[in-house]
């Protein structure tokens, strides 16, 4: 898998007639199985960038290339996990998890078997008949993650998926995500505004500047996993990242 973002720019005009450059001159090479965090302040266009990569939005110029294929619309090899409200409230957990497989035309028996295997992976087997409104925020995001994994994409696009969760649940899900990533070796592009989250998760942190969003830093994080948030090394890396950001 090779994902390339080539000279990408996104401009638009607001209803008030204001011309806005949301993203400017974005170039990025993403390697197979890499865990990348897109870090930036709110409004810097990181979500827009992720949406363009996912094929939900179109760039003004430049392109996104996945294995020699220019992305102009959603591609089954990439799955998107939204911040919230992405589960279908009229479907139970099992049917939500199997949603992607159902669209692909997999038989009910087969897709339930696959979905159950993935629910098992995140410890949600006993909730397979529950509805989203009966679950906690953390459990719902876990379902959103396994729904994405179930279609076996090469790339996971995650748009602040833990942003709406409380700190404790958030830490737990970050751990789980690292576990999942180590088991499945998916390529992950993870949007966040939390330095702490980025340092905990990423192989590489790509820092975007405030509008117009440009890539201003590419910071490899070489600390071995599992990372310990309370360790001195973790604090040093976090300080380093913060320093780089505040210079901008």
């Amino acid at each position, binding site marked *: 898998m090779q994902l390339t973002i080539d000279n990408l720019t996104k401009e638009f005009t607001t209803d008030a007639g204001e011309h806005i450059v949301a993203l400017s001159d974005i170039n990025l090479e993403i390697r197979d199985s890499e865990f990348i965090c897109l870090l930036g302040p709110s409004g810097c266009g990181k979500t827009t960038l992720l949406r363009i990569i996912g094929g939900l939005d179109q760039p003004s110029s430049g392109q996104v290339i996945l294995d020699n294929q220019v992305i102009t619309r*959603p591609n089954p090899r990439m799955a998107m996990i*939204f911040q919230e409200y992405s589960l279908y409230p009229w479907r139970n957990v099992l049917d939500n998890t199997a949603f992607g497989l159902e*669209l692909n035309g997999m038989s009910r028996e087969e897709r339930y078997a696959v979905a159950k295997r993935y629910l098992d992976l995140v410890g949600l087997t006993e909730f397979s008949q529950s509805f989203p409104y009966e679950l906690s925020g953390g459990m719902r995001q876990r379902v959103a993650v396994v729904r994405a994994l179930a279609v076996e994409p090469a790339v996971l696009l995650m748009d602040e998926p833990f942003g709406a969760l409380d700190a404790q649940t958030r830490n737990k899900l970050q751990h789980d995500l690292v576990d999942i990533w180590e088991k499945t070796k998916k390529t992950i592009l993870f949007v966040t505004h939390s330095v702490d989250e980025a340092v905990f998760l990423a192989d590489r942190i790509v820092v975007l500047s405030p509008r117009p969003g440009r890539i201003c830093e590419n910071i490899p994080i070489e600390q071995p996993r599992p990372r310990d948030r309370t360790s001195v090394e973790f604090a040093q890396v976090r300080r380093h990242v913060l320093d780089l950001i505040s210079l901008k």
Partner: protein
Amino acid sequence: MRWYLKIISPVLLLVAWEIAAIAVNNEFILPRVGSVFVVLLQPTKDILGSGSLLDNAIISLTRVVSGFLLGIVVAIPIGIGMGRVRWINDMVDPVIELIRPIPPIAWIPLALAWFKIGLASILFIIFIGSFFPVLLNTIDGVRRVNRTWIETAYMYGAKELQLLVKVIIPAAAPTIWTGIRVGFGIAWMSVVAAEMLPGTTSGLGYLIMYSYNFGQVQVIIAGMIVIGIIGLGIDIFLKEVERRKFRWQGLER
């Protein structure tokens, strides 16, 4: 809920009615409560050769259900099209807005001119009555579908038809159902009005109009009570379906 509070007003109404009936002392204006109940308690008894309360109720119900289903079958697809596709909306909306304020009953003369006296005219009036609430709620429900649900489906490779069947329709269903409830209420009112037309020979509307010609006020009131109870019963049924089927509504998270 304190049930005894709920029975106070109906009981007071009956008492006031009975007192008024005794005071008026004229069964052609206001019959006693008892004489109306006599009619209600014999729902299968023929009334003045125009069939029983039950027969006529079934006839009215059959009509309203037929006309109403017709309204739903036409309104929902148009509503989905208008809610989903901008140019369809822009093209159709002016006509809809123009016709919508015309009450169903105002269509009666035209219905008679087009379809003559009979079932077709009545069905047409019911159709008109139910069409707009269902249409407007369908448009609204389809437009308000959470964007993330749609984009999620696109990310998983949904084709337009799949999106429609697996996301748009289930997501809009609670709002459409509200339209169905409102629409049925109007359809029920329309059928009774349509049945009062000259030339009609059956149905609850016909029965109470016919009873008027014979001064049978107790039958008129009994018929009105049956009309009210059926309307209420169907609304309770539709609400119950809503409660069970769309429990997720308002709990989207």
